[in-house]
């Protein structure tokens, strides 16, 4: 999971670009070192060959073919020239002198440089020494070959080549591993921020991004985000405080008002009409108060202010109690209300809110389900998490309204006299909040 995220992260892509660029530069430098080293080694050996060639050539010019033959024989006999190869051939390429008995078949040019393997051609050519030689043709058309065994030089160049290539491979490998590790660290930090953000979205503003105490840029990002969350939490709290204050300030005059109305209602000298009027006013006033309570409750739920009342509760038991309470109402409209599933589903939550949420949904299901239909409240444990579902066999919610029903106070059809706060949205939200 983390590895997949690492490999697809932009940090890793940047690292790859850096590795690529760096690799090309390193390869170029190493190749230059290799080429110039081998060229230098080769040029030193070539200079020695040229010097030797020129000294033999001047011997030929001075004392003719026989003089040169004598000199070549002298050289081949001398141990200090053991690395050198010599061959003097007549125009028909028959060797006259030198330690190379057969004129190499590749040495056809009149003059110039050749490289060839000494001795007879055989399958294991690599075992035969590699020779490099300078060719020349005298005016008499006799031909001279002066060369050196460069097997060692070649081996040295090969070693440099191997070192350079393995160096480059190692660098790429290390850079690759390092970039994965660095990216993982970065992705890990971002993931922890993401995880906290998701937790905040799901369960509220009380979570904070953990700091590592390294005071690096990630810690600073986390610190700033945490400060932002503190601020948001404070603001939400202030909003709630305001609504609490408004609620409190309104309650006192409303209590007086209700008291007066009640007094008038029970008064001795009022007509039946007046009494009915006052009775209706009290009913409406109570409805206003309920809407008001619904609003403050929703505000409290959304600001998580009720967490103080959270404790471990058995969802299945609450569901059973709701079903028991609504049994009579279901019976009245001929609906079969049942509770099925697990007997125990423990969650941390507010019993009243969970009860209210399930009750809301059951109430809705009974009211909007099929007359004489079924309403089933099911408790399940899915992936170790308690899930409660309330299903009716009525017409259901049209697919295009699925999202809408989660909106506050949304209802599928407008019903006169319906009270806000009884729609599905608060219940769904509360169910969501509480059932963790």
């Amino acid at each position, binding site marked *: 999971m983390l590895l997949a995220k690492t490999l697809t992260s932009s940090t890793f892509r940047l690292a790859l670009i850096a590795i690529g660029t760096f690799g090309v530069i390193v390869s170029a430098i190493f190749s230059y070192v290799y080429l110039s080293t081998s060229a230098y080694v080769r040029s030193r050996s070539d200079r020695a060959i040229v010097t030797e060639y020129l000294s033999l050539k001047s011997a030929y010019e001075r004392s003719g073919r026989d003089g040169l033959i004598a000199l070549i024989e002298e050289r081949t006999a001398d141990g200090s020239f053991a690395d050198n190869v010599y061959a003097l051939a007549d125009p028909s390429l028959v060797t006259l002198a030198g330690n190379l008995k057969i004129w190499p078949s590749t040495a056809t040019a009149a003059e110039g440089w050749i490289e060839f393997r000494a001795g007879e051609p055989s399958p294991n050519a690599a075992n035969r020494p590699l020779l490099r030689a300078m060719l020349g043709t005298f005016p008499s058309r006799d031909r001279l070959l002066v060369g050196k065994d460069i097997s060692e030089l070649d081996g040295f160049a090969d070693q440099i080549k191997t070192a350079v290539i393995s160096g480059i491979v190692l660098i790429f490998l290390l850079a690759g591993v390092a970039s994965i590790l660095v990216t993982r660290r970065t992705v890990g930090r971002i993931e922890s921020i993401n995880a906290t953000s998701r937790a905040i979205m799901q369960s509220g503003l009380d979570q904070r991004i953990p700091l590592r105490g390294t005071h690096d840029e990630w810690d600073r990002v986390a610190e700033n985000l945490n400060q932002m969350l503190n601020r948001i939490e404070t603001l939400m709290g202030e909003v709630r405080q305001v609504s609490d204050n408004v*609620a409190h300030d309104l309650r006192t005059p*409303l*209590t007086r008002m209700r*008291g007066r109305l*009640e007094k008038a209602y029970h008064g001795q000298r009022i007509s039946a009409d007046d009494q009915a009027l006052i009775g209706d006013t009290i009913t409406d006033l109570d409805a206003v108060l309920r809407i008001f*309570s619904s609003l403050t409750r929703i505000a409290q739920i959304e600001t998580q202010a009720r967490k103080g009342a959270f404790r471990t509760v058995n969802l299945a038991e609450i569901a059973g109690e709701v079903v028991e309470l609504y049994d009579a109402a279901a019976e009245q409209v001929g609906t079969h209300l049942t509770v099925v599933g697990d007997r125990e589903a423990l969650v941390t939550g507010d019993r009243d809110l969970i009860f209210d949420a399930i009750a809301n949904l059951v*109430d809705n299901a009974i009211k909007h389900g099929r007359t004489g239909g079924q309403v089933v409240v099911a408790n399940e444990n899915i992936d170790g998490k308690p899930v409660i579902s309330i299903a009716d066999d009525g017409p259901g919610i049209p697919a295009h309204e699925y999202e809408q029903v989660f909106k506050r106070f949304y209802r599928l059809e407008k019903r006169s006299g319906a009270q806000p706060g009884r729609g599905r949205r608060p219940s769904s939200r509360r169910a969501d909040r509480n059932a963790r």
Partner: protein
Amino acid sequence: MTGGHRRILVVEDDPETADQLVESLKTSGYQVDLATSGNEALSRGATGDYAVITIDRMLPDIDGIAVMRRFRDDGIAAPVLIVSALGEVDDRVRGLRAGGDDYLVKPFSFVELLARVEALGRRSDTIVKETILRVGDLALDLMSRTASRRGKDIVLFPREFQLLEYLVRNEGRVVSRAMLLQHVWDLHFDPSTNIIDVYVGRVRRKVDGQQAYPLIHTVRGTGYCLRAPG
């Protein structure tokens, strides 16, 4: 509640609400003392022998909860009904935890307040250790959890029995829907549907159906009252 023990202490700082409270309690036959601040409540509470004390949570000098704590510390055992404009569960829980016996949220109906005061007053009487409760021809056997009228068994679900028991224990007194929710279902909110009425309706059909006289009566706008005729 005996006639000599119908004194109530009302602690309320809002003059008009206080007047209304005092008047409605007096009309119901209580002697009422009024305290308009926490300090006054403390001095009155220390001297008077009250059946019930109602305390407003938001007082000008001392918080209602603090007053109640002082009462408890001073050994005043009278049941306390907290009346508060702070209606949410946390406040309620805090109030009850601090030693309150019941909680009523402003604005309230006076009938509701009276019902709760009556219920609290009854609690302060000696607890009767009976195993069979009787009202008229209704008998509730608390041991076997069965109900019968004129010897004929009434089939009740456990919760229905609990509801009937609560009504019987408050015989002759008005019991509000909120009180039923609180004492029978342990719920501290108003589901604001007619669900309680429907539930009581079913119990009533079982208890009063085809009987000589009804026992469960609806009190319009408030709740229910269980009483035998005469």
